[in-house]
């Protein structure tokens, strides 16, 4: 299965205008799925805009936008099968949605409610805020699946900055040693807050770091959903059904892959960030020419899969889905203060009971208003 691409060659399918690049093979995706891919990207873009605006209006806390990164998230998440898992960082709202997490859950989480982090039945791990830490969880879960004979792949998202953390190293190294069915998906959006990619590592690519762990690294145009879909599918297949490590392989591991998806975050790191302090508008504009949404739209229009009418319909359905999610999230009752004490352990300890009772006494004595002012 293994292709052993040179990690310096970037996999690309679509050019900046949505045409198929010379020599590129278009992945085998049916029309409905292509439409879904497009819709999920539109949904993510619209959700993102609304979420930023909710934060500006004080209706939500700090929020990390994803505009520009839709192809990487949607293209990769769609390459997974039902039994597969994703381990997100904090920015993968679109990938989580593809995998079955409601937008209202995502909103609830960023509205400060842990209940938004229980993704019902979706095979999605909770948001991980400490950088790179989720990589070990993904490796561990993939390892557990392997040990218990489950046939699933585990895809873990993280940023370019995350590759500098020790947990990145330990996670990929364990994955290589135990040859687990994991796909490490690096959303290289060029910036870790204000720190540019070149400051994270002197290595020519991030993909080549895979060799340090004895497996393959792949570089892909992360703003090209078809290319992302393709390399992720390949990696998922390899995770589940590896061949032997080839002679030119960097080591013994046969299942894991590191994918570096080159992309750009159009907006701020989070709503608390002001990117104009550290980067030029020019740079942003240059990258906006690679915007994945018009690229896929052009490709699908060209193929006759989309037209003005269906594009408009998608626009409307996306708007209404986001509007109802916001509505649902905002209508959710605040969590009860007691929630705080209920999930520390499976059962409350005596101390927690006392503390919960103490809080209730204070609430009775003074009322919430006084207590929270």
């Amino acid at each position, binding site marked *: 299965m293994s292709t052993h691409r040179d990690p310096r060659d970037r996999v690309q399918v679509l050019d900046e205008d949505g045409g198929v690049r010379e020599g590129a093979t278009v992945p085998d995706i049916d029309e409905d799925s292509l439409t879904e891919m497009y819709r999920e990207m539109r949904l993510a873009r619209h959700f993102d805009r609304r979420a930023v605006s909710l934060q500006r209006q004080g209706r939500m806390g700090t929020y990390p936008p994803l505009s520009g990164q839709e192809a990487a998230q949607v293209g990769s998440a769609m390459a997974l099968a039902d039994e597969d898992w994703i381990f997100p960082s904090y920015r993968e709202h679109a990938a989580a949605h593809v995998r079955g997490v409601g937008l209202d859950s995502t909103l609830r989480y960023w509205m400060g409610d*842990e*209940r938004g*982090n*229980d*993704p019902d039945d979706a095979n999605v*791990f*909770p948001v*991980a805020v*400490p950088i790179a*830490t989720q*990589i*070990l*969880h*993904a*490796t*561990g*879960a*993939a*390892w*557990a*699946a392997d*040990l*218990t004979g489950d046939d699933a792949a585990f895809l873990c998202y993280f940023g370019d900055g995350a590759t500098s953390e*020790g*947990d990145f190293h*330990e*996670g990929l*190294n*364990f994955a290589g*040693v135990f040859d687990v069915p994991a796909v490490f998906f690096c959303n290289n959006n060029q910036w870790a807050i204000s720190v540019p990619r070149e400051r994270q590592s002197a290595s020519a690519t991030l993909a080549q770091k895979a060799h340090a762990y004895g497996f393959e690294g792949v570089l892909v145009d992360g703003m090209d959903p078809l290319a992302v879909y393709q390399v992720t599918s390949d990696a998922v297949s390899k995770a589940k059904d590896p061949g032997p490590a080839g002679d030119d392989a960097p080591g013994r591991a046969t299942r894991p892959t590191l994918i570096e998806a080159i992309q750009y975050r159009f907006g701020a790191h989070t709503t608390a960030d002001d990117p104009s302090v550290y980067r030029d508008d020019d740079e942003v504009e240059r990258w906006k020419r690679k915007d994945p949404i018009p690229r896929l739209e052009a490709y699908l229009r060209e193929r006759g899969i989309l037209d003005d009418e269906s594009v408009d319909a998608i626009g409307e359905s996306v708007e209404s889905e986001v509007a109802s999610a916001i509505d649902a999230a905002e209508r959710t009752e605040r969590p009860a203060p007691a*929630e705080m004490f209920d*999930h*520390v*352990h*499976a059962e409350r*300890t*005596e*101390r927690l009971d006392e503390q919960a009772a103490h809080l209730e006494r204070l609430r009775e004595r003074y009322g919430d208003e006084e207590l929270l002012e």
Partner: protein
Amino acid sequence: MSTQESNTQNLTLVQAVRDGLKSEMERDDDVIVLGEDVGKNGGVFRATEGLYDAFGGDRVIDTPLAESGIIGTSIGMAAYGLRPVPEMQFSGFMYPAFDQLVSHAARLRTRSRGRFTCPMVVRAPYGGGIRAPEHHSESKEAIYTHEAGLKVVVPSTPYDTKGLLAAAIRDPDPVVFLEPKLIYRAFREDVPEEPYTVELGEAAVRREGEDLSVFTWGAMTRPTLEAAESAAEDGIDAEVIDLRTLSPMDTDAIVESFKKTGRAVVVHEAPKTGGLAGEITATIQTEALYYQEAPIARVTGFDVPYPLYALEDYYMPEDTRIEDAIRETYGA
């Protein structure tokens, strides 16, 4: 102590660790052991000896040398449904895993409101007194105890070791299980062959007494008992309470004993400032101040980095120092 009817073996504390692991692994296929040198080598203290042969390399796993890696992957395994029992080779080498432990293991349940949980037992030999190199003698239970979402256990007898370890492994949440290596082989005790549990969160009265309460745990239990016996020769009747579980702490047992005696000494190896003796003192004085007859004494390590072994015996609390505090507290 044991009232079991079953067959017993006469085991040291470290043998009880091994026996506890073995019987839990037999009971539950999801229990796996992983860590540095736990496999073929059976652990640097031989705590996992024989398990590799008994259960194979898929359940007793030698890992690369990376503590955050061990705990972090264990969290993923636990969330996926296994019950990993990672070993940290010495508690002084747990720090690289501190972030995974406190930012994830301790919080996975609360973060996901119970959808994901982390049934994992982090075992580590801990404490000083064995002439070991730097970083091999740490006693930092307080930092784990301060972390909501973690349970912390320190056994002091072979019987308790097996039972507490079983309870920890069956617990649905993460437990830090600190093994007092100074007494790994110090004495033997009859331990049932059958699996059994000793409930987490319950202190044990090791010596009943009327005049004064001494609270301690782990390797300090024995010198404390010696000090109490020696004080008894002069008519000071000290009660010795082994806390066994540090989080959740058995506040009831502490307060009850103190209400009876009105005087207390707390003994631990960890440095004094910020050590658990402070927590215990605060607990007592909120709940039983009006019973208090003398200041509560703290017999602890000093506020210095644990010294290399030429000076470690000056650092470690031992029976003379404990007895001195018992006498002073009794006389105050």
